[in-house]
C-alpha cells in the first residue's frame, strides 16, 4: 500500500443531459499525500469541481462516475453505499463550497448546523455537541462565539459564513478537506484572512487539502503543487514556481498570460490574432481636451443614507473628463456600488449633486431619469451577466431595447443595422443575436451586456464588477474590449471592482473607498506602488501575487 491518502485513477465522470451523455471529467489521475495542500486550477467547465464532487460523492443525480477509481486510504470511494458512505462524508472527508451564505441553511442557527455535523458522527449528548460547536467557532476565530451560536446566516458576513463552513467541515477532524472556490466572491482582504486561517488549520491538524480555484495566483500562494485542468483532463502538474516560469502546456501558458499581475498591461492579455488591431488603436493619440473644458462628470459632496441607518456614502466628490477611466475600489460595504448607482441615477442621493456635461442631474429623481435626454449618455454594465439579462429577451432584443426606448427607433432595417453594428463592436458573432441568454456562454453574455450599454453611444459607462463572474481568459478579452471602446469612442469608464490588478491595468486614476468615504486617490500605478494609507496597503498586500513563492505551511 502506498502512502498516498487519496489516489484518483483515470477518473471519468459523465452527465446525462437532454443532448445525451456529456463527459465532464475525462481521465483524471492525481494523488494527494496526507497533510498536503494541492491546488486544482482550471476555468469554468474544466471539470475541477466535478472531480471534487465525485471524490466526496456529492455529484448531482444526473452525474455518474463512468470509469476509473477514487482510492481513499486504499478504499474505492465510488463503490461505497449507505452507512459506509455516510461514515466517510463529513467524517473522514469533508468539503467547503463557493458562496458560503447559500451553503448554509438560512433558517437554522449556525450553532445547530455545526452540531448537526458532530451528532451525525459521534455518539454524544446534544449539550456536548453544542460545547464542541462553540469550541469550533473559537477555532475559526469568530468574535463573540457564544452570541454567534444562535445567529442565522443572513446575520453574518460572507467571510463569517465561510468560517462557519470551515468549522462544520473540520468538526470531525477529517483527513482530507476539499475546498471548492472557497473565497470566490469574497473581498481580497477577507480572502486572505480566510485562506490564511484555512492553511493554518490544515497545518495544525495535519489535514490534507485540495484547493479548487480558477485563480492561479491564489493557488500559487498556498499550494506547493498545482494541477491544471482543461476540458476534463489534467494538462500539467508542477510546483508554482515551475508553472509560472516555464509553463509546459499551451493551455497553461495561455492561463498564465491571461492572469493579471501587478505588472501586466492590457495589451499583454490580448490574444495573438487581436493584437494587430489593438496596436493600431494604441498608437492613435488620445485627444487632449482643450484647456478650460468643463469636466464630463463632476460629483459634489455626494451622500447616501438608507432608512434610519448610518451613511452608506458620505462626502464623495470626484471629477472625470471624457475618455478617462477611473477605478473605484474598496471592500464590500465600502459604498462603491451605492456610489456608482447614484452616479448612474438608478438611486437618489441624500445630499450633494452630480453635474454631467454642465447639467445638474443629481436632483432629477431616479424614477424620472429615464425621460432625461442624458439617460442615453450615462449607461451601466452590471456585475452578473447571468442575472442582468432578461431571460425572455434574445440578445437582439436586449441590444435593441435601449435603442427603441431612448433613441426612438422603430423596428426595421435601420434598427437591425444598429444592433448588428453594436454586436460587431463588442465582437459578438451575428449568428448569436437570435439566441436567449441561457443559450450563451458567460463571456458572450458579458458582451451582450456591454453591447446594450453602448448601443445609444453613451459618453460615460459605469461598470460594476463587470468581470467578477468571468474566467480569467474571458476577463482578459472583456477588459481589452472595454479599453478599446474607451480609446476608439472616447467613452469615459467608471470601473467599480475589488480586483486591484484589473483596476491598475485598466484605469488611469483610482479612488479607494472605505466605509463610504474616500481614503485615498491618485494615478493608479503610483497609488498601488506607494500606498499612503494602511488601508490601501492592506488591500494591495492581500492580492495573491504570482511572483511570490508559496506560503510555507507552518509546522510541516
Amino acid at each position: 500500500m502506498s502512502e498516498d491518502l487519496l489516489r484518483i485513477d483515470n477518473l471519468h465522470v459523465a452527465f446525462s443531459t437532454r443532448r445525451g451523455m456529456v463527459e465532464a471529467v475525462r481521465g483524471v489521475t492525481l494523488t494527494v499525500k496526507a497533510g498536503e495542500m494541492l491546488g486544482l486550477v482550471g476555468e469554468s467547465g474544466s471539470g475541477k469541481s466535478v472531480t471534487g464532487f465525485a471524490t466526496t460523492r456529492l455529484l448531482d443525480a444526473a452525474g455518474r462516475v463512468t470509469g476509473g477509481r477514487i482510492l481513499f486510504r486504499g478504499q474505492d470511494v465510488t463503490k461505497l453505499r449507505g452507512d459506509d458512505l455516510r461514515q466517510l462524508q463529513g467524517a473522514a472527508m469533508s468539503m467547503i463550497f463557493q458562496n458560503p451564505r447559500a451553503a448554509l441553511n438560512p433558517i437554522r442557527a449556525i450553532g445547530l448546523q455545526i452540531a448537526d455535523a458532530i451528532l451525525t458522527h459521534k455518539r454524544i449528548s446534544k449539550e456536548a455537541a453544542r460545547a464542541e460547536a462553540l469550541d469550533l467557532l473559537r477555532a475559526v476565530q469568530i468574535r463573540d462565539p457564544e452570541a454567534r451560536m444562535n445567529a442565522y446566516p443572513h446575520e453574518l458576513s460572507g467571510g463569517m459564513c465561510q468560517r462557519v463552513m470551515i468549522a462544520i467541515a473540520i468538526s470531525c477532524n477529517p483527513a482530507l478537506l476539499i475546498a471548492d472556490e472557497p473565497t470566490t466572491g469574497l473581498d481580497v482582504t477577507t480572502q486572505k484572512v480566510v485562506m490564511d486561517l484555512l492553511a493554518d488549520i490544515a497545518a495544525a491538524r495535519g489535514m490534507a487539502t485540495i484547493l479548487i480555484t480558477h485563480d492561479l495566483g491564489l493557488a500559487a500562494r498556498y499550494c506547493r503543487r498545482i494541477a491544471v485542468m482543461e476540458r476534463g483532463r489534467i494538462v500539467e502538474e508542477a510546483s508554482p514556481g515551475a508553472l509560472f516560469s516555464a509553463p509546459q502546456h499551451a493551455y497553461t501558458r495561455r492561463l498564465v498570460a491571461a492572469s493579471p499581475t501587478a505588472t501586466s498591461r492590457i495589451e499583454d492579455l490580448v490574444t495573438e490574432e487581436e493584437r494587430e488591431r489593438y496596436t493600431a488603436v494604441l498608437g492613435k493619440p488620445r485627444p487632449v481636451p482643450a484647456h478650460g473644458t468643463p469636466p464630463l462628470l463632476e460629483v459634489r459632496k455626494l451622500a447616501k443614507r438608507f432608512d434610519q441607518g448610518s451613511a452608506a456614502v458620505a462626502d464623495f466628490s470626484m471629477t472625470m473628463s471624457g475618455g478617462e477611466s477611473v477605478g473605484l475600489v474598496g471592500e464590500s460595504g465600502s459604498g462603491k456600488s451605492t456610489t456608482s448607482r447614484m452616479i448612474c441615477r438608478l438611486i437618489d442621493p441624500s445630499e450633494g449633486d452630480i453635474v454631467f456635461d454642465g447639467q445638474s442631474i443629481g436632483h432629477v429623481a431616479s424614477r424620472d431619469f429615464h425621460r432625461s435626454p442624458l439617460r442615453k449618455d450615462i449607461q451601466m454594465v452590471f456585475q452578473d451577466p447571468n442575472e442582468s439579462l432578461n431571460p425572455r429577451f434574445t440578445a437582439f432584443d436586449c441590444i435593441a431595447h435601449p435603442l427603441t426606448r431612448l433613441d426612438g427607433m422603430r423596428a426595421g432595417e435601420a434598427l437591425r443595422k444598429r444592433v448588428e453594428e453594436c454586436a460587431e463592436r463588442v465582437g459578438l458573432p451575428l449568428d448569436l443575436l437570435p439566441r436567449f441568454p441561457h443559450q450563451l456562454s458567460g463571456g458572450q453574455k458579458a458582451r451582450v451586456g456591454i453591447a446594450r450599454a453602448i448601443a445609444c453611444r453613451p459618453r460615460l459607462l459605469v461598470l460594476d464588477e463587470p468581470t467578477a463572474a468571468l474566467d480569467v481568459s474571458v476577463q482578459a478579452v472583456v477588459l481589452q474590449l472595454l479599453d478599446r471602446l474607451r480609446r476608439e469612442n472616447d467613452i469615459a469608464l467608471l470601473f467599480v471592482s475589488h480586483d486591484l490588478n484589473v483596476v491598475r491595468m485598466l484605469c488611469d486614476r483610482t479612488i479607494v473607498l472605505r466605509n463610504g468615504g474616500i481614503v485615498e486617490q491618485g494615478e493608479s500605478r503610483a497609488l498601488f506602488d506607494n500606498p499612503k494609507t494602511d488601508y490601501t496597503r492592506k488591500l494591495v498586500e492581500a492580492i495573491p501575487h504570482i511572483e511570490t513563492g508559496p506560503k510555507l505551511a507552518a509546522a510541516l
Partner: protein
Amino acid sequence: MLSYILRRVVATLPVMAIVALFVFSLLYIAPGDPAVVIAGDQASPEDVERIRQSLGLNRPFLVQFGSWVWRILHGDLGTSIFTNLPVSAMIGQRLGPTLSLMIVTLLLTIVVAVPLGVVAAWKAGSLIDRVIMGFAVFGFSLPVFVVGYMLAYIFALELEWLPVQGYTPLSSGFWPWLENLILPAVALGCVYIALVARITRAAMLEVLQQDYIRTAKAKGLGQGGILFIHALKNAAVPIVTVIGIGIALLIGGAVVTESVFAIPGLGRLTIDAILRRDYPVIQGIVLLFSFVYVLVNLMIDVVYTLVDPRIRY
C-alpha cells in the same frame, strides 16, 4: 412579536368594516323586495307595507347600516325573518358540524398531502412521483359532489363500512363523531390534498436544489434528516400559504359537501337562507366566514415569522 400581532389585528379593522358594508349592501344589490318575499304570495300591499315598517326597511340606507353595525358590535346579528330565532343562535347550533368537518379535512390534508409531496419531490421523475402526481390531477379534476356520491355509494351502500349520511356530535363519543365525518372529509379534501401535494412537491424540489442541501449531504446526514430537518422547513412558507388559501376553498366546498351528506352545518343553513331570502341569516353567515378568513390570514403571517427568521416585521 406581540406588538406585531396587535398591529395586525388593528390593521384588520378597516378590512372588516369594508366587508361589513358590502355584506349589508347585499340586501339592496340582490333582486327582489324582501318585504314582498317575507309577506308571501297571498299578502296584500298593506301587509307588505306593515312588514316593511316593522323591520325598518323604509329608513335611509345609512341609518339602517349604522343601527345594524351598532347591533353587531353588541353581539346581536339580528333575527331571522323566516324562523324568528336570533341569527346568532341559529349559527351557534350549526357551527359544531361545520367546524368538525373543516378541522378533520384540514388534518387529513396535512397528514396526507405533505408527506406525499415530500416523497414525490425526493423521488422526482420516478414511478412513485408520477403516480402521486397522477392522483393529484385526478383529485383536482373531480367535483366534490361526484366524489361524494361515489364514496357514499362504495363505502356506505355497497361495503357498508361507514354511515351514508348524517352527523353525530362529539359529545356522543369520538368514534361515532369521526365515523360520520370520514367520507365527507375525504370528498371535501380531495381538491385540497391535490393542491397541497403539488405545492409541497414544487417547493421541495426548489429547496432540494439549494447549496445548503448539498452541505447537509456533505456532513453525512441521513436522508430523513435532510428531507425533514433541512428541506421541509425551508419549503414551509409556500406550503403554509396554500393551506391558508385552501381554507377559503373549504368554506365553499363545505356548502356542497354538507348537502351531499346531509350534515346539518352552516353550509346547509346558508343554502336554506338563500332559498328563503332570509337576509339577516345570510348577512350573519357571510360576515362570520369573512371574519374567519381574515383571522386565518393573520395566523399565516404569524406562522411565517415562526418558520423563517429572515421574515421580521
